[in-house]
């Protein structure tokens, strides 16, 4: 079983990162943990697909990766635009 240690390690990583997501304390800690969980879930998915002998389904992991970014950016963009009461304009010379 060449995948067993990796799967165990990834599940442990998920559990630890979820502890950080529950503890907080700020929203950013939670978003950071969620981002890490997305990455680890993607890796776990890829490994599980190799384990069950369907390596061609790695596209699913790609979809996860894209959604992970979309989710993180959406939370941050909303936090910036919504809660702080500012429009999300980009100042000259600033990064987006």
């Amino acid at each position, binding site marked *: 079983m060449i995948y067993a240690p990796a799967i165990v390690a990834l599940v442990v990583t998920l559990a630890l990162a979820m502890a950080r997501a529950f503890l907080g304390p700020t*929203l950013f800690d939670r978003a950071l943990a969620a981002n890490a969980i997305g990455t680890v879930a993607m890796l776990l998915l890829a490994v*599980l697909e190799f384990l069950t002998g369907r390596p061609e389904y790695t596209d699913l992991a790609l979809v996860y990766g894209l959604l992970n970014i979309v989710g993180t950016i959406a939370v941050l963009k*909303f936090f910036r635009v*919504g809660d702080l009461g500012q429009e999300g304009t980009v100042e000259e010379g600033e990064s987006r």
Partner: protein
Amino acid sequence: MIETGAVAALLALMAAAAVAVVRQRNLFAVVVIGGIYSFLMATALAALDAADVAMTEAAVGAGVSTVLLLGALHLVGSLEVKPSSGAALPLAIVLVAGLLVVYGTYGLPAFSDPQAPIHRHVAPRYLVEGPKETGVPNVVTAVLASYRGFDTLGEVTVVFTAGVGVIALLRRRRRPGGEGRP
């Protein structure tokens, strides 16, 4: 064996996430943990051989509903108020409903039973004739886009209308709020 263990661990983490959602008062945190829950759910579904459902869960659960819930938070504020009544009645209703669903699963055929009714009706025909008749290698795509093309068109219309409606609802409040862009 290791696969079963991984699925069990994912389900346990999902239960932990559900408890955290209930106990959390900050709705931002609830949305973030909800996204985590969806990612775990999608991974568990993929491990159970349901690739298409996993993709839908990831796209809808972790992607679209996160964005929609954030849009809703924009309208209602981000702190949950204390509930006015106790938790006993809702808990009882949820428990009864959950037990009913569990009871219902006893009427289902065993997991991946080849003699189940769903595998004996039109499924063999789709599997055997599908690639020849439609030229599409993926059976799910062949069924959705070819055999049930009009059905899917109707579904997509409904989903599109719902999406437009949600955007219209969430956009509306923006304008009186200040010098917001159109």
